[in-house]
């Protein structure tokens, strides 16, 4: 019921000092304090109704569990409230620009969500007879065609589950190709210092040694250093392009040539494909394998950490080693090849239980059809335009790491402009939270001191970019004017104040346990 206006003030009276105000219960207005599900006394509650089986005994004897599991339940309204309250403690792209460099936080079209939930996709079993999944196989085939065409590469492996899994796919193909050529002794993978952590981690995961390649003063791979380190021991190089400094590797064709001349393969980390999609085909650059994060370039939602999808495009040289399964057209329809049919097939094998992230394939394909090639080209152009606009607007108050020439889809700043202010990159980032923005990627790439990597993406309006640049400009001015506490104590206005990560790691509490009665939990065994 609406409240009457008669007889009550319709203007706020005294403003008071809101920052000092505390509620009586400790609540913060509509932002609810929310306990863990384990603290709600729901040990005998449930939010589902089942028709119980007539006989509940099983024939499994002592295979059946007897001890309680320790799972609380909640009725449906309680569960709804719990998770909705929690949701309100999250920042999200749908709330404001989310400038995490390297992560490509773009708008997630809801049409894609709707399409992935069509029963013909969402309720389809991976081992259902193939004659009943022809539409799904065709969609995979269409997606593969788009990915191959956009990258100018002859083959694609769809099954990798994320970018890092795609890197694994690429390196396993490279390893298999070397082994097939009697080059299995090659043990080294060259990775620039600026690379994402998954690159060296993946190389080590498949048993390679990692050697770092230096970077030039203008943020690119140092060709002389690369040449010096390429040897008959090198299996592959892993280079990100556009690289993690947000720059296009100008000498990429030469990098590929040198690599191939040394008998090695060129793995390209395609996490930043958004900057060039529809405008540049990696196949024209000499790449042998490249993963594409569908959860970046092709807008599938990040979901608070996943799931993603990391299809890998492959060159002629690596295509024979692609993992199973794959889709082929067969007469009128499509066939999923799940096992290498002939014993001699060169596939390196299987890397997931089924066929990859179908739910993401549907979303990415809907995204591709929506944009078309003209729209995708515009995506790249607007992403690059937005990043350069931010770089131009913020350069007067912050120091771009590579001031000369344009950047691609992200603008990288270092912390030299903060020198002497007593404010660190971390403090600055936390203060951004108080201004309503998610911080940029910080301290990455490692080659730039106190790095701040800002990726706006193409789905930001000029108004939102201006709002963002205005906020950062005010913050930068405040830092330089000595308003240090605004930063060192930040955030003040977030659902929580700054969290103590050191304590979390020192005495890890990774699960809820009933309150200890007298003695505190045993300290972690040091390892």
């Amino acid at each position, binding site marked *: 019921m609406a409240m009457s206006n008669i007889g009550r003030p319709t203007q706020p009276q005294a403003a008071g000092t809101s920052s000092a105000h505390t509620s009586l219960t400790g609540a913060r207005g509509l932002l609810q304090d929310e306990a863990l599900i384990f603290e709600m006394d729901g040990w005998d509650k449930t939010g589902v109704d089942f028709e119980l089986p007539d006989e509940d005994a099983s024939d499994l004897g002592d295979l059946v569990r007897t001890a309680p599991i320790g799972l609380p339940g909640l009725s449906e309204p309680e569960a709804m409230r719990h998770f909705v309250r929690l949701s*309100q403690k999250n920042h999200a792209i749908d709330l404001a620009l989310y400038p995490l460099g390297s992560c490509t936080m773009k708008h997630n079209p809801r049409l894609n969500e709707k399409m992935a939930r069509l029963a013909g996709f969402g*309720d389809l079993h991976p081992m259902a007879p193939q004659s009943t999944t022809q539409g799904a196989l065709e969609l995979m085939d269409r997606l593969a065609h788009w990915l191959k065409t956009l990258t100018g590469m002859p083959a694609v492996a769809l099954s990798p589950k994320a970018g890092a899994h795609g890197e694994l796919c690429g390196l396993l193909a490279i390893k298999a190709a070397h082994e097939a050529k009697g080059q299995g002794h090659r043990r080294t993978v060259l990775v620039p210092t600026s690379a994402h952590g998954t690159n060296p981690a993946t190389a080590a995961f498949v048993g390679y040694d990692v050697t770092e390649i230096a970077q030039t003063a203008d943020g690119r791979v140092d060709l002389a250093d690369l040449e010096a380190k390429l040897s008959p021991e090198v299996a592959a190089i892993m280079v990100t392009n556009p690289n993690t400094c947000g720059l296009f590797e100008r000498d990429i064709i030469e990098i590929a040539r040198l690599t191939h001349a040394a008998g090695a393969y060129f793995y390209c980390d395609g996490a930043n494909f958004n900057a060039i999609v529809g405008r540049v085909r990696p196949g024209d650059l000499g790449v042998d394998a490249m993963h594409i994060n569908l959860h970046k370039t092709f807008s599938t939602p990040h979901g*608070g950490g996943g799931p993603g999808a990391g299809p890998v495009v492959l060159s002629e040289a690596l295509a024979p080693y692609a993992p199973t399964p794959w889709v082929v057209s067969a007469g009128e329809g499509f066939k999923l090849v799940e096992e290498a049919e002939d014993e001699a097939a060169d596939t390196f094998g299987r890397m997931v239980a089924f066929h990859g992230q179908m739910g993401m394939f549907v979303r990415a394909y809907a995204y591709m059809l929506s944009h078309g090639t003209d*729209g995708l080209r515009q995506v790249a152009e607007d992403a690059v335009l937005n990043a350069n606009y931010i770089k131009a607007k913020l350069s007067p108050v912050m120091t771009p790491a590579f001031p000369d020439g344009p950047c691609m889809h992200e603008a990288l700043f270092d912390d030299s402009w903060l020198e002497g202010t007593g404010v660190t990159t971390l403090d600055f980032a936390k203060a951004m939270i108080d201004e309503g923005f998610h911080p940029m990627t910080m301290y990455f790439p490692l080659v730039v001191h106190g790095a701040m990597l800002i990726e706006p993406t193409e789905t930001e309006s000029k108004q939102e970019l201006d709002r963002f640049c205005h906020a950062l400009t005010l913050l930068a001015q405040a830092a330089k004017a000595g308003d240090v506490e605004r930063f060192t104590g930040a955030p003040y206005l977030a659902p929580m104040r700054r969290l103590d990560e050191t304590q979390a790691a020192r005495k890890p509490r990774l699960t809820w346990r009933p309150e200890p009665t007298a003695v505190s939990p045993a300290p972690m065994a040091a390892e």
Partner: protein
Amino acid sequence: MRYLPLTPADRAEMLGVIGAATIDDLFVDVPDAARKADLFDLPLHAGEMEVERALSALAARNRPAGAGPFFCGAGAYKHHVPATVDHIIQRSEFLTSYTPYQPEIAQGTLQVLFEFQTQVAALTGLEVANASMYDGSTACAEAVMMAQRVTRRKKAVLSGGLHPHYAAVTQTIAHAEGMDITRQAVAIDAEADVLSAIDAETACVVVQTPNVFGVVTDVSKIAQAAHAAGALLIVVTTEAVSYGLLKSPGEMGADIAVGEGQSIGVGLNYGGPYIGLFAAREKFVRQMPGRLCGETVDAEGARGFVLTLSTREQHIRREKATSNICTNSGLCALAFTIHMTLLGERGLRELAALNHSRARELREVLAAVPGVEILSPRFFNEFAIRVPGKAADVVEALLADGVVAGVPFSRLDPKAGMDDVLLVAATETTTRDDIAAFAKALKGRTA
């Protein structure tokens, strides 16, 4: 283009601020040789209605599991997911946020992960669980790699009851790392066969319960033998609902438990996204792969959650990381946690009992079909049967009667010589009518 906010006027103005004449000036670093993208055979942009029409047409050519009697399992199960789950996971704040690297504005995701980890630890009977892996199969491969780090040994023994895809994924990955993987001969009730293969070089033994033929095994003896040899026991479970009825892996002595969590909250999705569950004994926590969420306090002493022990992970440790995983199955973990919270212990036990009961009904009815032999001696909600002729042909034939009969084992492992073995699963979604239709069709086709 409806997803692109910039207007031509904005673009012109912004180029002016940048000091560039045209957009091409921003692409100057691209070599000339790579500037002419030839994309002729792809279409131009399309409206929402056209895209919806195109995708609906593709979807219409698939037969959803819910379209009629349906008995496929083999690592992915058709379960009812409460409507609440899908509603909550579509909230912007969960759907459109990134990995919670800024904990002050990601407490929603972080608290859910802490609840998820606690639920998974409870279900598996182990002390710690991570914030998810890609799926059960990659979790299995990672568990083997972890056992190698813990024991500093190179040999892994995989049981013949392990899902063939899980075995293949583990072989692909662990082989590249230089591990020595022995996969035992495929057999219906095979878990105990691993006992003979455990020796002083063994890093780990991998068993599955319920196994790929649905067979449930008490692996306590295997745990004892493994531990006596200084090896770890890894227990795999592909049907997470079974945790509600069966003794947990931890209770039976597992050191690492991995599972596919798809049954709880996630749905079928033609194979992905799914969610890998990964739990272990606390003393091994620093060797675990993947993200971990932990409890801490903020500057005012209030309880909060952060990602922790990240010195194990690729973004800090790079080539010395325990795994290369970065993006995981976050939103599926949320779906799992919501569904599991709605179930609660009571609901999960009821759900498990219902699954088991439906599968036993299915067994009774199929056992009465002439020519059908029940192969799995003890099972939860899935079992293997022998059919006359090839299982793949039986499945094709029964499609004409509107019944999807199950997964021919030969599809998972064509070389096992088990062409007449069919895996059939029943869940709470299976009705008596479904079972009757299956039996009738089978009788008609095998007579």
